[in-house]
């Protein structure tokens, strides 16, 4: 049996298992049949097993260069290094859908295991919904995006994967993180939908959903920022975000998921906004599907699109089904949700959370409109139009800064209601510190001869406020524990972290967001650019740096030719060594791809991008960026991911009862 046929059979088996499991799951939800539930769970595992095996078969085909498998013939090449061959699984459409299936399979297996407590009322419908989603992806793999096609005349070698994938190690990490984030959103969606199908919602189930949302949220955070990081390190235009439709596609569900994480807390504690929380959950999942549609349909003009793909219509139908299902499910079941306690005062964390939700949704709406507006105009007037960075920045700056300000105010206030005096006491020091730091930053800028600019300084003010509040919120329980038990700082900190994992995780995420905001504000406002055509031995000055072109070097890798420009860097009188901005030439690619050279310090990056390099080393077209504070963006991302992981980390498992599901 050929590998292609074996792979196809595994996909068909996965499709059959998913369909059967979905039907049995829904049946168990109605009839409460223990047998049906047991079988549904078995089918869920079988579905996961078949997809994992199918992925292994594909990896085997890739590694053994079996060009009789259509996907291998499309992206494989004998010249490609092994680690690139492994990751070429997600370098093109069909493989990326298979990888998508793999991620879903792993999530489904983990979810099914966590729902092993048979007392859970919502478990059968959850398995039903998640396997219904699984059927769709298995169907895609069986038909419109089949990676296991037969190749009639088997070629001896293939073209190799997209050169951009081969250009930087971050490209190995960025897509899987993004997929883990995207696909993982299916799990909380299924859990929320199951609660509504069953009729009702409990606090315990909601906090379980929230935890399942935190996992993909953490991955998505990493995926988005690493995408920007990759663009920064590889594309050579000195920036990390361009509001490209596909970047927006990854950002949209992140925004609504973030809104959900906050709304869910409000719902757990105060019973408020149950329906709204579910709407956010459904919208988040729908936006991941919309995002996939944007990336994979060729409808949007983007650097990421795999153009002219046949799966566009299939995804659109799926999106329509998800949206219409969500609306009707909500309409038929919204009245089964108990009303929550009303808001007591605007001086409360509750109100800050509601306001945060409104801003996040406004943000989502603006980005969505900006992204879809060209399509809308074309549909109505037949006109083409593109919405550029200025539009997005104009909205993103005020909304984003406002959200970060709220991030400083909300956690400082108590739940329920704060008296005017309490609120003043809670906010006094953070506000004072924020004003002091911001004035200090403005003074420092003026001393260095820069003009103070509004948005960067507002970013500084907002992030300082949020930082101070987050640190205080983390410090307070540690101090209390130290006083009560007279223990050392380390012991108290570990104890406090164990007791309030969610609180600490959340505040660490907030610190990460503050760092990211700081970095975006400063790097956006104070970047310096210099550009010159340098002959060998000539220098240019940008900021404090003197850059001298000292010739070029040709390097032959198995899969590409590189020309490195040798640039000597000096800061004042101090020699700082050489940097090597490069141009890479890949076989079968007309245009070279530049790789910038980046030198990072705590305060910022020196970023050299070659526009052209003479192979003989007589001249270089050099573009130089001084990007202040950019490294803090990546640091902020890691901090956010650490915080998300701490929040989502399973607690001590209780023996019986619904808490077991929550702990999983």
């Amino acid at each position, binding site marked *: 049996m050929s590998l292609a046929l074996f792979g196809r059979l595994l996909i068909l088996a996965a499709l059959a298992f998913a369909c059967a499991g979905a039907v049995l799951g829904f049946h168990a939800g109605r009839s409460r049949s223990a047998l049906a539930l047991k079988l549904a769970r078995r089918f869920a595992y079988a579905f996961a097993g078949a997809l994992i095996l199918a992925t292994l078969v594909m990896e085997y085909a890739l590694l053994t260069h079996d060009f009789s498998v259509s996907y291998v013939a499309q992206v494989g090449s004998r010249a490609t290094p092994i680690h690139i061959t492994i990751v070429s699984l997600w370098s093109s459409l069909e493989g990326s859908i298979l990888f998508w299936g793999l991620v879903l399979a792993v999530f489904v297996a983990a979810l099914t295991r966590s729902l092993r407590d048979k007392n859970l009322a919502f478990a059968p419908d959850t398995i039903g919904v998640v396997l219904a989603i699984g059927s769709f992806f298995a169907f895609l793999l069986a038909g419109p995006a089949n990676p296991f096609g037969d190749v009639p005349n088997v070629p001896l070698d293939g073209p190799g994967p997209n050169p951009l994938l081969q250009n930087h190690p971050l490209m190995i990490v960025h897509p899987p993180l993004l997929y883990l984030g995207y696909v993982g959103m299916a799990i909380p969606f299924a859990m929320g939908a199951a609660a509504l199908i069953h009729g*009702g919602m409990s606090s315990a189930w909601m906090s379980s959903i929230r935890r399942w949302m935190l996992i993909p949220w953490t991955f998505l955070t990493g995926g988005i920022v690493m995408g920007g990081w990759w663009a920064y390190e590889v594309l050579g235009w000195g920036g990390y975000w361009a509001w490209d439709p596909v970047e927006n596609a990854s950002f949209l569900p992140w925004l609504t998921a973030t809104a959900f994480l906050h709304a869910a807390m409000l719902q757990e504690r105060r019973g408020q906004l149950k329906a709204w929380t579910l709407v956010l959950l459904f919208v988040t999942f729908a936006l991941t599907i919309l995002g996939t549609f944007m990336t994979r349909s060729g409808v949007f003009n983007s650097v990421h699109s795999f153009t002219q793909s046949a799966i566009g219509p299939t995804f659109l139908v799926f999106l329509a089904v998800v949206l219409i299902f969500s609306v009707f499910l909500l*309409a038929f079941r919204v009245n089964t949700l108990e009303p929550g306690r009303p808001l007591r005062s605007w001086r409360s964390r509750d109100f800050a959370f509601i306001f945060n939700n409104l801003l996040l949704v406004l943000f989502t709406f603006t980005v969505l409109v900006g992204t879809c507006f060209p399509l809308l105009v074309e*549909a109505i007037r037949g006109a083409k139009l*593109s919405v550029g960075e200025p539009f997005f920045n104009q909205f993103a700056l005020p909304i984003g800064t406002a959200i970060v300000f709220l991030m400083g105010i909300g956690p400082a206030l108590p739940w329920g209601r704060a008296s005017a005096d309490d609120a003043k006491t809670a906010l006094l020091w953070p506000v004072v510190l924020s004003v002091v730091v911001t004035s200090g930053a403005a003074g420092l800028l003026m001393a260095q001869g820069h003009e103070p600019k509004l948005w960067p300084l507002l970013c500084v003010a907002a992030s300082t406020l949020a930082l101070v509040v987050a640190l205080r919120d983390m410090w307070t329980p540690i101090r209390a524990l130290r006083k009560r038990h007279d223990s050392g700082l380390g012991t108290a900190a570990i104890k406090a972290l164990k007791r309030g994992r969610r609180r600490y995780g959340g505040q660490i995420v907030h610190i990460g967001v503050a760092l990211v905001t700081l970095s975006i504000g400063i790097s956006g406002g104070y970047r310096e650019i210099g550009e010159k055509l340098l002959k060998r031995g000539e220098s240019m000055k940008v900021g404090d740096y003197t850059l001298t072109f000292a010739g070029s070097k040709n390097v032959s890798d198995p899969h590409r030719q590189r020309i490195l420009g040798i640039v000597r860097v000096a800061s004042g009188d101090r020699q700082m060594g050489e940097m090597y901005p490069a141009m890479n030439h890949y076989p079968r690619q*007309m*245009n070279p791809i530049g790789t910038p050279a980046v030198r990072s310090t705590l305060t910022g990056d020196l970023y050299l991008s070659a526009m052209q390099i003479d192979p003989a080393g007589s001249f270089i077209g050099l573009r130089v960026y001084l990007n202040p504070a950019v490294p803090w963006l990546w640091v902020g991302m890691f901090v956010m991911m650490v915080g998300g992981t701490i929040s989502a980390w399973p607690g001590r498992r209780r023996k019986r009862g619904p808490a077991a599901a929550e702990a999983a």
Partner: protein
Amino acid sequence: MGQDNQQQGETASTGQAQPSRRVSYKVIIGGLVIILPLLWVLFSGLFMDPHRMDAPLVGRNAPAFDLPELNSDGTRSLASYRGKPLVLNFFATWCLPCRSEHPVLNQAARQFGDRIQFVGVVYEDKRAVVNAWLNRYGGQAFPTLIDIGGKAAIAYGVYGVPETFFIDPQGVIRSKHVGPMDPMVIRSRIALLVGGGS
């Protein structure tokens, strides 16, 4: 959340609490009002090639322009290019597809430059950044003009960038391409232009 909370949750989940199963028509109407237009827009997008559109100017005289040159104080008018087939490319440095297109244009300009005039028009962009961008994305094999205030773009009915007009030696627009061009497209358009113009 303590044990209490979870107990409460379980009673709510068994559906014995007072909430009803009434259908909310508000949710249906509100939801459909939001999702149907979105689906319609996406659906109509499927039938639109992002790279093609109808051009009312094809077959007519190209609108006249007189635009400043990028690297001098002088200006160039459409009339000054008469007598040679002209490829007029509207682009901008903030436009992502233009990045992939520009090297293709440069290549074509080097190849056909003796027979065909290539001209770039920077559309709604700042003069300072254009030179840098041109050098980064393939060099300057042909002259670039700056369309201050976007008047030429409006006259040519440019909807977005990149957009390219193929004008014959008599000043008649022979065809137009929307979106980035690849080597195949540009070659076939030039063949059409040379064939139709002479």
